[in-house]
């Protein structure tokens, strides 16, 4: 552990040193914008032909910022901040696109190129780990989920292409939509939770885009009662909640993978030895199915961990 901490700190300090080194130079991107300024047509030129789009854009968060309150040279470019220099496009009467970045459906501009434009401004906070993330690798474009030109409706947030977060994710994640229909489910189909409560679609350091250092830490965001540490720990709980639970939905209660009586027998044998200590063994004997198939949890109620000195079998 200590080595890991030291390694981590060394990593952070190395990063800081590199950042200091890089910060000595001017921001190259801004310089380039100024240098290329003569190639830009200007927002008024775009507006002349694309008035309807301009009007919609002007009501969006980005539009308000770019049109009325630009904070730097990049934002002052308005439309061309995202689409690139449009002088040639304007000069051709709209026939030539001359390397402009286009986002419309069927655009031949690669997703990585389109996304790079967004990342010039949106590379912090939740977007820091976009590169190399599952959505990036699969060439998902930012504009497949977010709409820049569409005036946000009263109900929409984050300028999504669809009304809700869940609707946006459901376009591709059909299986998870089906899982929401299971008997046991989180309140997604009722609209009281969204996919991004648990996932960060822009990239994470943890697997499956979960918002947590591990699956457990994700679950503890709402279920901290299982965080412990406990006097008596149940190892599969300590390692990964998903050893027993299916978070997207299950036919069985409490999002369990299989009925409780069978779930426990994935690890424990069927007969119910009462002795805790087996002769000549350091490991333990435990279970036999009781006749009431509601399962082991009828007696072993504190299965997530017990803080009772008599809780060794999770009875108390």
């Amino acid at each position, binding site marked *: 552990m200590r080595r890991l901490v030291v390694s981590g700190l060394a990593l952070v300090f190395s990063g800081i040193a590199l950042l200091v080194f*890089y910060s000595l130079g001017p921001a190259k991107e801004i310089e380039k914008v100024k240098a290329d300024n003569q190639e830009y047509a200007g927002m008024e030129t775009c507006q002349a032909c694309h008035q309807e789009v301009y009007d919609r854009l002007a009501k969006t968060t980005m539009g308000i910022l770019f049109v009325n309150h630009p904070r730097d040279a990049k934002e002052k470019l308005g439309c061309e901040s995202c689409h690139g220099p449009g002088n040639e496009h304007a000069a051709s009467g709209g026939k030539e696109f001359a390397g402009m970045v286009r986002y419309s459906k069927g655009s031949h501009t690669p997703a990585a190129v389109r996304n790079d434009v967004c990342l010039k401004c949106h590379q912090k906070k939740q977007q820091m780990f976009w590169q190399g993330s599952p959505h990036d690798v699969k060439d998902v474009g930012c504009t497949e989920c977010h709409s820049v030109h569409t005036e946000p409706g009263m109900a929409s947030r984050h300028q999504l292409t669809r009304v809700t977060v869940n609707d946006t994710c459901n376009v591709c994640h059909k299986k998870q939509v089906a899982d929401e229909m299971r008997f046991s489910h989180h309140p997604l189909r009722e609209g009281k939770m969204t996919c991004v409560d648990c996932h960060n679609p822009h990239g994470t350091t943890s697997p499956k885009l979960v918002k947590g250092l591990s699956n457990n830490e994700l679950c503890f965001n709402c279920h901290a009662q299982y965080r412990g540490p406990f006097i008596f720990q149940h190892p599969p709980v300590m390692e990964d909640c998903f050893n027993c639970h299916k978070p997207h939905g299950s036919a069985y209660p409490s999002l369990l993978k299989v009925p409780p009586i069978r779930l426990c027998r994935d690890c424990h044998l069927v007969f119910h030895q009462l002795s805790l200590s087996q002769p000549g063994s350091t490991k333990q004997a435990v279970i036999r199915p009781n006749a009431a198939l*509601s399962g082991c949890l009828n007696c072993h109620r504190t299965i997530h961990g017990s803080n009772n000195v008599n809780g060794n079998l999770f009875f108390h």
Partner: protein
Amino acid sequence: MKIQKGILVIFLAAMFLPLTSVGSFAQVTLGGYTLNGEVDLGGRFFINEPSHVNRGYFEQYIPYPTGVLLDQLYAQLANKDGSEYYKFFMSRPGERDEDFLLQAGKIGCYKLEIEYDQLQHLYSTVNPNFQDMLILVQRLRVAADWTPTPEIDVYADYNLLKRNGEMPSSSIVQGPPNAYAYTSNLKPIDYTQNDLRIGADYVQPMYQFQLGYHFSQFDDGNKEFLANPASATGWESLPPSNTANYINGAGALNLPQCANTRLTGNFTYGWLNQNDPVFQSNGSTLYPLNFLPGVANTPMGNSDLSASTFAGDLLGVSRPTDQLTVRYSYRAYDFQNDNLNNPVLINAFYGSNSVNLPLLKMEQYSYLRQAVNFGADYKFNSKVAVDLGYTYDSVDRDFNEGSTSTNTPKVQFRVYPCDWLNLIASYAYSNRNGSNFLEMPSPISSSSVLTYKSYSGGDVRNLVNFVAELLPLNNVTFSTNFTLYTDSFDNNGYGLLSDNGWSAGADVSWTPCKGIALSLGYDHEQSSTKELADNAVAAPNLGPVLGDSGPLLLTSDSYDTVTARADVVLVPEKLSLTTSANFSWSNSDFHNPLMPNLDETIFHVDTWLKYNYDKHVAFKVGYIFEQFNMTNAYQTLYLQGISDTGAPVGNQTLNTLQGFYNNYTAHVIEALVQYKF
């Protein structure tokens, strides 16, 4: 149809109010800020209302009261160009699923959010002695985000989560050598969770940096409860209060001159603490005298347990050419258990004559999880791309509690043969090896070691995915997907042997003309698990192994889901129809003649007809239909129990406190008037 006259009068009045001169007020301007928004107001009533005892699952998370309904209200106060704003939203105030949101901000500078919402978790309504068994979940979120310059972002986010109510819990009143018998009780829930996150980001085109701190505190208002009132030792300790702290640093570096590389690093250190009072099964905090001489005698006091976590990541992505993307990453997650010398634990693990150290280590171990990942994506041209990846991950546990290593090579092909066809196929082979786990003696005997960590043992997994997306016409999208997985658990004499499944789905979207959008989808999923549960040895004094005895336990599940949606403009700018339907049915077969199959269906339809009276006023009528059916296997499996003859088990009948739901059919009508201002 039963509609209370009073309710009808109120919501009809509410609906028609906007048509009167009282309702038609002009747009309001306050000191340069313009107010606009919309409100949906009306009422709800049932046609064929399910009885109270049958409404448990229908209202599991959301209540459906009848009467006047303020469905939602949006109000926005914004300056002329919209750069400064105050927004307010509320939904169903006064109901158990109410939601409020207040936002204030200046675009590009700061944003404040205060949000409060509720939901219920209704466990059961079938017990005549209890009105409703439910937990009310309340959440308050306060968030602030300040962006003094485009390069700097400072944020704070506070979440308060409260759970109050009661949930069902069972308790044994009689066990071996006699037959099992249970009682049930309501477990009190009074949880409070506080989470505060603060952090800052600094960003430059060539690098980004962020620091964060997360404090989380969980408090349980109840410490223990008498799960079995008939027993002096029937006390159960409730989840202990605990705290967690995390500090986090992350940075990223863009190196365009170095094969277009981006390096990202992340470091998080967390420490957890739990120091709640320790109880005994008799409800007392006092320990018997001389329990363990020399180690913390009475009183026991608090637990004082702690653990720490560390996570470190280093990720890189390089794009040396337009065609090639290379990914590489290393991740370490360390869970450090610091409690081996804790006197409370030593006392708790004290056996007949000494501390049961092996058992203590078996539960209180630390583990280190590491993963290395390499991947390369190469686009041969605009039509063909291949992605190769390899992941190695491992889990090492202290005290010889086993280690696990997994090798996963994978390949993915993406083919775009023409503008209207996208094909993606992937295959992953995963080989997991567990070592130092319990070895099963053969033949098995009453002295056998009986626990095996199947979730970390040997497993060979094959995973196939296929997605095809067709866009034959500009207004038609068709996609189909297929997934297959096989898991074979080796070195596992008992427990889980295999887990196999597949799923297939298809959906089509069609927009035949402007104003009509239709979509239809179907998904089928099938899975089967096989467990070997030896039943050869049963101590004579325990009686015969009953019910689901094995030795081979097969579970087959199948799930089918149909989804459909239609958005139709019946009269342009006047009348529109939106309808969505979900129908899902599932079957669980336990391959045991004593255990009935568990079949369930749920059918939900949501249809809305909207009429725009003018640019301010619209009328909406909604019809919600939901039907839920489940075979009584649920009651048999979870509540009543079965004997070796399949008959209900005498004196083992759990009462309905355990919580279950009845079947129901519900037809709901909602009529709303929407007024935009």
